[in-house]
């Protein structure tokens, strides 16, 4: 309590005297400079990112980069706290969910002022555009990723179950395949790791039904019956034993990637972003395969889309915007950095880098790039509107209400739309 109040007051005082932020166009300092750099991710990412930081520091002996990394859960509260206390890290790994919320409130540096140190020539314009909010480039896309099913083929072999044909499968086929596994798994292994905890699955579900989560104006646009069918399906998976008991599902969904059903070889099929394949393979030690989403061949147009997996952005209150821009330039354009990071943050959106690293990729990374290259996609959904950053928490809570029979899928749909729209209107 006391700490919350303290942070609030500190923020009040600081906003009064220090807003605006510097320009990133200035000369680099010769004096020692310390940059703080924050990201979320799993162990694998932390190791690789630290290597890139070491490399950068070797090339720029007067710049020290301090990494601050967290799990996705907790990352955003912590970022909000540091931003409010005027203590934001200089370089911030940003997500599509939060980009508009931070940019529209002036927390991010307009990277258009940083072109002296930060080049974007090797990016596709369409990719760069995903980092534009209200006409200004607030973020540089790091990588692209796409929603997929990850299947554990080792377990499928062990149970002597054939891998489903992902070119034609429907959600019913998906459920059937999962049921077969659950039966063979004898309680230890379930067919499906339940979804319903992220924006990816809901976006796909809406798009396959010819809808969208948000309209262009940033209003909630997904119809009630589509939402209800989403939760009906999730509930059905749990009730029929295709996915684990609700309490197990909730426990895993709340933990880090390493504790997921896929990583612990407790579920055969699960929804993930394609670029998480390498981390998941490392954690599970099993052979994992990316499958196209069920229902795509039944949908009138592809629901799958390229999502900027994350962005680089710079705090508008950074004391060293020029050095921060140099660091982001290194992250975005350096082949040496890319050789270390490979596809951990998505298939590089920088086309030159993508071409350069492809031959060097390991088996799982290559599989992730190939998957992204061959999949059919539609146009990307609108950036999550300002105020809707808590979208995933709201989805998760409603999934819990449905799984535990506290709300019917129809009630959940109604409540979801109302709550989300209220958040957007309040921002």
């Amino acid at each position: 309590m006391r700490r919350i109040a303290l942070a609030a007051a500190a923020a009040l005082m600081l906003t009064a005297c220090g807003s605006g932020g510097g320009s990133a166009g200035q000369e680099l300092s010769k004096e020692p400079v310390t940059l703080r750099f924050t990201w979320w991710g799993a162990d694998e990412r932390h190791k690789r990112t630290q290597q890139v930081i070491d490399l950068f520091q070797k090339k720029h002996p007067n710049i020290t980069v301090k990494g601050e990394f967290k799990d996705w859960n907790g990352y955003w509260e912590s970022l909000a706290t540091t931003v409010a206390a005027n203590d934001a890290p200089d370089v911030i790994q940003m997500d599509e969910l939060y980009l508009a919320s931070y940019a529209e409130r002036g927390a991010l540096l307009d990277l258009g002022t940083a072109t002296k140190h930060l080049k974007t020539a090797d990016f596709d314009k369409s990719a760069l555009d995903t980092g534009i909010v209200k006409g200004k480039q607030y973020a540089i896309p790091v990588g692209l990723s796409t929603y997929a099913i990850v299947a554990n083929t080792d377990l499928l072999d062990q149970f002597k179950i054939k891998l489903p044909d992902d070119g034609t499968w429907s959600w019913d086929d998906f459920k059937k395949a999962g049921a077969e596994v659950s039966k063979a798994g004898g309680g230890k292994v379930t067919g499906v790791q339940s979804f319903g905890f992220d924006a990816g699955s809901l976006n796909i579900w809406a798009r396959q039904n010819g809808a969208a989560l948000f309209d262009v104006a940033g209003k909630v646009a997904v119809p009630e019956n589509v939402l209800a069918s989403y939760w009906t399906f999730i509930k059905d998976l749990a009730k029929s034993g295709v996915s684990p008991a609700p309490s197990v599902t909730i426990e895993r969904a709340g933990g880090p990637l390493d504790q997921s059903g896929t990583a612990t070889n407790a579920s055969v099929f699960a929804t993930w972003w394609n670029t998480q394949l390498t981390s998941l393979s490392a954690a599970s030690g099993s052979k994992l395969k990316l499958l196209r989403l069920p229902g795509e061949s039944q949908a009138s147009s592809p629901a799958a889309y390229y999502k900027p997996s994350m962005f680089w952005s710079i705090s508008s209150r950074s004391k060293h915007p020029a050095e921060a821009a140099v660091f982001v330039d290194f992250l975005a354009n350096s082949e040496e950095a890319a050789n270390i990071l490979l596809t951990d943050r998505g298939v590089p959106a920088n086309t030159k880098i993508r071409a350069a690293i492809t031959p060097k990729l390991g088996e799982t990374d290559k599989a992730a790039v190939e998957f992204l290259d061959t999949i059919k996609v539609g146009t990307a959904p609108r950036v999550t509107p300002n105020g809707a950053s808590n979208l995933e928490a709201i989805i998760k809570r409603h999934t819990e209400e449905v799984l535990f029979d506290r709300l019917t899928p129809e009630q959940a749909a109604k409540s979801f739309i109302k709550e989300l729209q209220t958040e957007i209107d309040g921002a």
Partner: protein
Amino acid sequence: MSALGELQRMRKGSRGTLGVAREPKKDNKAAFAFLLPWFAGLLFITAGPIAASFVLGFTDYNLIQPPVFNGLDNWMRMLGDARLHKALGVTLVYVLVSVPLQLACALALALLLDKGLRGLAFYRSAFYLPSLLGSSVAIAVLWRQIFGADGLFNQVLSMAGIEGKGWISDPDSALSTLIVLNVWTFGAPMVIFLAGLRQIPAMYYEAAATDGAGKWTQFRRITIPLLSPIVFFNLVLQVIHAFQSFTQAFVVSGGSGGPSDSTLFYTLYLYQRGFGNFDMGYASALAWLLLVIIAAFTAINFWAAKFWVVYDD
């Protein structure tokens, strides 16, 4: 136990005879010198934010841009905020169930330890330890493991042939695990009870025994009335403490208050609004509502004390 004495005097309304005021002047200075660090902290660290949060309660403030005055909007909004109502319900259940249970455990253990066991010092420390750790992150993480689907608790249950579940990830049992956690931290009130028990003169019991009163009658007629000011003291303190619980729910639910808001403590909701939803104006108003609620509960406690607390000096 000077705080206790203080409390008793306040109850009696004899403010003019507060301990310190009667002492010679030079002792006064020493007292203030010792209090100085605390006063400085209050003034420079706590008072400012408290005042600021009061002002912020009447603004729309998103943490990044300057606050905008919006009158009573935040307060009107509370009326229709379903999640706030849910959080109030969860917190009330937590306070009303866990505090009496905790005090009962504390009193029971204190009575037992007061019998003069061998190795009393050891037991006293052992039972006191949890209250030092209880609101720490480490214990909350431990709790998550113990009551997880593959946790220690389920392993013990399975030995007895009972099939467990993910206690923390089931909305029907998640709050109970947090109540158990709070009850487990009975050490602090227990130590105070122990001190109180030591103050009851042994001659009362001897006299009662001579008159043929059994153990139960002695407990009811001597221990309880003479201990009642201390029970009251512990009750007031623990109720205030429980209303402000945050860490346990935050860590155990991963900050969500879930599953399905079953562990959404008031302070956790406040935190979510302030830092998760960039809604610091509303969060500040919520903080002041909590203050009002705690003050009201404390006032009720003081009023009710008239009917059951016995002061014998």
